């Protein structure tokens, strides 16, 4: 009983991170129809930049802020210097470019920040909090809390602000949106900035629990993508549901069956989604558009 509760808690925290990564996939998928293969690298980059800044004796908050800004800059520059050069930014062209950008991002981190694993301290220490019979790492609260905040803020942005609504308009009818004066490129840049910022934040909040290094991005990206597919590609609440579901399943499989199973869960979840329900739990047929 206690073991299951512990597993559920650890599933909730890794699931929250997957949800944030999935959110990045969904935002970019919605506005461009492309799969952003650099998403995982951006998450890793966020963790690495924060850890390096912290190791250079920066205050923790500043290190995190710096990491988020740096990754947003990298994403905006990639969009500006590479994606904008594509004459016809079709979903496929953007997807292929993102693979190239992913490889470059990873190499960039390796060359500039090195190959050693890096770490951040827990945001409020690492003394476990006792709750009933459970020993909970305090970082869990930060992870779940920040994820909830980011989800709410994103929802508010898309539903309530003019820019957020404009991005939904571009996703629904790109030509009609251009006729309304919404620059399609602006929407694209905005979605890249948003996805990168959320990704980098995800990277910084998980690092105290898992460490990070230049080669962590690919796996995180893959799990975030599985979570996005599971919840429904392009759906914002789907990212949350898919992420938490994947994190929980993974933790249970790893703890109750065998830890070898842990990483296979995302793969199995992705395959099952593709076979049984390609639109995901909350998706509405968006996948056929690709």
């Amino acid at each position: 009983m206690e073991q299951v509760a512990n597993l559920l808690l650890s599933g909730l925290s890794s699931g929250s991170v997957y949800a944030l990564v999935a959110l990045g996939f969904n935002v970019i998928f919605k506005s461009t129809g492309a799969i952003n293969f650099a998403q995982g690298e951006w998450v890793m980059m966020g963790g690495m930049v924060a850890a390096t800044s912290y190791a250079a004796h920066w205050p923790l908050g500043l290190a995190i802020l710096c990491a988020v800004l740096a990754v947003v800059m990298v994403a905006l520059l990639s969009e500006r210097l590479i994606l904008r050069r594509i004459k016809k930014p079709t979903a496929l062209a953007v997807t292929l470019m993102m693979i190239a950008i992913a490889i470059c991002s990873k190499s960039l981190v390796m060359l500039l920040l090195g190959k050693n694993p890096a770490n951040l301290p827990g945001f409020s220490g690492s003394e476990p909090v006792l709750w009933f019979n459970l020993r909970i790492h305090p970082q869990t609260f930060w992870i779940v809390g920040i994820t909830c905040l980011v989800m709410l803020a994103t929802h508010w942005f898309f539903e309530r602000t003019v820019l957020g609504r404009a991005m939904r308009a571009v996703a629904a009818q790109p030509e009609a949106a251009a006729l309304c004066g919404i620059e399609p490129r602006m929407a694209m840049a905005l979605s890249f900035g948003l996805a990168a910022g959320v990704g980098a934040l995800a990277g910084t909040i998980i690092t105290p629990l898992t460490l990070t290094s230049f080669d962590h991005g690919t796996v995180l990206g893959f799990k975030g993508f599985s979570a996005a597919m599971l919840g429904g590609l392009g759906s914002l609440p789907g990212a949350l549901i898919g992420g938490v579901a994947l994190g929980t399943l993974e933790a249970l499989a790893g703890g109750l069956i065998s830890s070898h199973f842990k990483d296979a869960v995302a793969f199995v979840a992705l395959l099952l989604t593709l076979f049984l329900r390609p639109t995901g739990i909350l998706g509405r047929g968006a996948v056929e558009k690709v």
Partner: protein
Amino acid sequence: MLELASLQAGYGASNVLHGLSLSVNQGAFCTLIGANGAGKSTTMKAIAGLLRPVQGSIEFEGQRIDHLPAAQIVTRGIALVPEGRRVFGPMTVRENLQMGAFTKLYPRSTAGNRQVETRLEFVLETFPRLRERLPQQAATLSGGEQQMLAIGRALMSAPRLLLLDEPSMGLAPLIVLQVFAVLRQLQRSGLTVLVSEQNASVALAHADHGYVIESGRIVLADSAARLHDNDKVREAYLGI
């Protein structure tokens, strides 16, 4: 007000417009009639900036606009109601209308916000049906309501020239008449209107001036009344 001169435009390698020229006077109600594939939508897209002309020029109020992208043409005072309406289905009617005024709402300004408020009131007075539907999802509207929404959205940018690409498509005859009556009313209050239509009888009955387009060229240009009596037009487009 609008001047198209020897316009050539198309998709990739194939040209659709082969030296098309036409002009629309300030305050006029003009129609562009033609059969399927004649190039009506291509002409509209070229004016609105969705398609860059290969050759020729488009002038609006004395300035060339043929190099501008669509998002900038709106700010010059031209709005296009695209073929097939293209409303933002997952968004509410209110959000759709708000998006029509995007260039006034972003970057943010109090003056812009106030303009949009008055404009919204004007659009809702023009289409009272939309007022009842403000919180409803656009995708759930009927075809006629979606056309009203598409026109309302275009009006939200406060254009001086309103372009409509086949507004009658897929609508019941009675609704078509309503739409044209509204266009007439808008034109009387000072808006310049250019409508492309396959439905020549309705278009010629409402417009002042007409152009007939055939395989990317204007073959006839005259007052709507005279076009209506023209033998060739009667035979080819009115089926009389």
